[in-house]
């Protein structure tokens, strides 16, 4: 594996992105009693042809991040620029062009495809909205090509989603995302609903397509092995914040943040000879509520290193002692992957 080297200007720059959802109570006279801090001050860059993995447990804000970047949800504050242009201010034609360039693959291949549409209509629908990409006469041919590219039989263009298996449906979703030749694809848990043998097929496909079309991926997943396999760089999220970000090697071989270390050590390793020999960091308790996150460092309630400063002062996401940026007052490298 060649050393990772970032190439060119970032295609996507996310700065201080915040998304809070109000918590409302009352039937007639609704009032807001607090906010779910789903994404809180997230910044990163994505370079052309790069895959940025985003890992974290349920409720860490990784899927909200995807929705905000797709402009499916407005951000509370912060900015994101695609090829240097601010995406949250775009309107009309400019926004339409943006949507051509950023597409999404969703987690659940059973609910993300309309059961009453044929595969041809599903994969061809983007062309209805963006007719300039493919003239009407050539659309069927385009759809057949797309099906072929993702490894489906182009003859199945008239079939319905229920006639396909989970892995094949995920391929349909990928074909739909590819239709407009986007530059960035946000993959939100694209393989977590699939069986092991099928998961490998879809991961290989995503890898091949990236090479073929020069795609950049934001690859969101909770499975750390899957993320490592596909990512150049990895961001670890906890309760709405990035706690550590670095190259795949930095994060997996030299993790600095206690949460990253705990997360990596908790992944079961498919090798019975390591049983009882691995050092496993067991976290106590559950993730706190994002409505009322702990003061200071959000991880401190489950952290074995927590001290007074952690409750009082929020650690910045900066490099400490030469390593990759990590948001911990006591960041220290500890290798946990066998």
């Amino acid at each position, binding site marked *: *594996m060649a050393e990772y080297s970032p190439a060119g200007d970032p295609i996507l720059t996310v700065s201080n992105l915040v998304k809070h959802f109000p918590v409302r109570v009352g039937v007639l006279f609704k009032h807001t009693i607090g906010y779910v801090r789903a994404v809180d001050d997230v910044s990163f860059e994505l370079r052309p042809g790069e895959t940025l993995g985003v890992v974290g*447990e*349920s409720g860490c804000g990784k899927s909200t991040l995807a929705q905000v970047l797709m402009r499916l949800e407005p951000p509370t504050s912060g900015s994101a620029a695609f090829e240097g242009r601010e995406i949250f201010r775009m309107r009309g034609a400019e926004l339409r062009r943006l949507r051509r360039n950023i597409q999404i693959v969703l987690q659940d291949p059973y609910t993300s495809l309309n059961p009453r549409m044929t595969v041809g209509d599903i994969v061809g629908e983007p062309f209805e909205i963006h007719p300039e990409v493919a003239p009407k006469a050539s659309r069927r041919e385009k759809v057949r090509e797309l099906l072929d590219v993702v490894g489906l039989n182009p003859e199945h263009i008239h079939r319905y989603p229920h006639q396909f*298996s*989970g*892995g*094949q449906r995920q391929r349909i979703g990928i074909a739909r995302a590819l239709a407009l030749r986007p530059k960035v694809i946000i993959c939100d848990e694209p393989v977590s609903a699939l*069986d*092991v*043998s*099928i*998961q*490998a*097929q879809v*991961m*290989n496909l995503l*890898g091949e397509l990236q090479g073929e079309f020069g795609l950049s991926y934001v690859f969101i997943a*909770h*499975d*750390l*092995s*899957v993320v*490592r*396999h596909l990512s150049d760089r990895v961001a670890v999220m906890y309760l709405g914040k990035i706690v550590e970000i670095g190259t*795949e*090697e930095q994060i*997996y071989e030299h993790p600095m943040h206690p949460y990253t270390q*705990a*997360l*990596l050590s*908790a*992944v*079961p*390793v*498919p*090798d*019975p*000879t*390591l*049983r009882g020999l691995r050092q*496993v960091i*067991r*976290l106590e*308790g*559950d*993730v706190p509520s994002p409505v009322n996150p702990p003061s200071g460092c959000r991880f401190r309630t489950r952290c074995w290193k927590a001290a007074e400063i952690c409750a009082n002062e929020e650690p910045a996401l900066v490099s400490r002692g030469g390593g990759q940026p990590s948001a911990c007052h006591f960041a220290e490298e500890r290798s946990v*992957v*066998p």
Partner: protein
Amino acid sequence: MVTRTASVVDTGEPGALPSAPLLEVADLQVEFRTHDGVAKVLNGVNYQVRAGETLAVLGESGSGKSVTAQAIMGILDVPPAAITGGAVRFHGEDLLTLPEERRRAIRGEGIAMIFQDALSALNPVFTVGFQIEEQLRVRLGLGRREARNRAIELLDLVRIPNPARRIRQYPHEFSGGMRQRAMIAMSLALDPEMLIADEPTTALDVTVQAQIMDLLAEIQAERRMGLILITHDLGVVAEVADRISVMYAGRIVEQADAASLYRSPGHPYTAALLESLPRLDQRGQTLNTIKGLPPSLLNIPSGCPFHPRCRRAEDVCRSEVPRDVRLGLGRTSACHFAEEVVAGG
């Protein structure tokens, strides 16, 4: 105190053992009668579990691992399901021929089960406490107060903080990991000899999964329970299983102790599964995949059901159903070329 290593030694060559298995599934066959035809869901499943032993049943969706568990528990929906052959022996007694009354007595006290999705397995309109106490009162005849005290002990045993307060709460007030703990507490209420855990951590985050697996292993060792762990996760299996049964298309295609199975898989399906796994410790290029899809159970391929996806399939694989080949150390593999596969061929 029985150690894990001891239970691995326990499972030597079948027949050479003094201790009878606690549970034995023998040639179990189940069909589902659907609108589209008869789905042959289980086609002769065999496995055994001894006291204190952890058997992992590994397989992908539709391989029949959960249906086997449901048949053992007697909770299959009949119809559409029908048990067409075989036996499920608990302490040597065939559960499938017992009157329902006797079976009910074994459920909970003999064999208990926990499910993947604790939120739908728990009743949302009763408190967690009520649901644990119910079986203590009905089955053990405990009074209200005794049952409550015992339920609090159980919640404490599965390390739910503040059990006296938690017991009055409803399932929706619990987090995912807490619910799974509550379900484990419930399954332990009647002190079963055998526990079936059907994907107990699949819905949980990895740090919580680690907590729950630790808890299960600890409780099992303490009580010398037999444990059947149903899962698709090759990582979880490697960490806890004494023995492993790999299922494919309603059959056990390989049985082995954990160390041997990962070191030298004896069936091409197991070998391919292990190769298709992304690894935490390396950034790979292209994963080895298993081509094609698992077969439709309405129309299982002739001969070996894995042959259309198998790298080394030959004519014999298409025409003849492979028998279980013994590979020593209690290992079996249902492959015509089992000896070559296990030798790394």
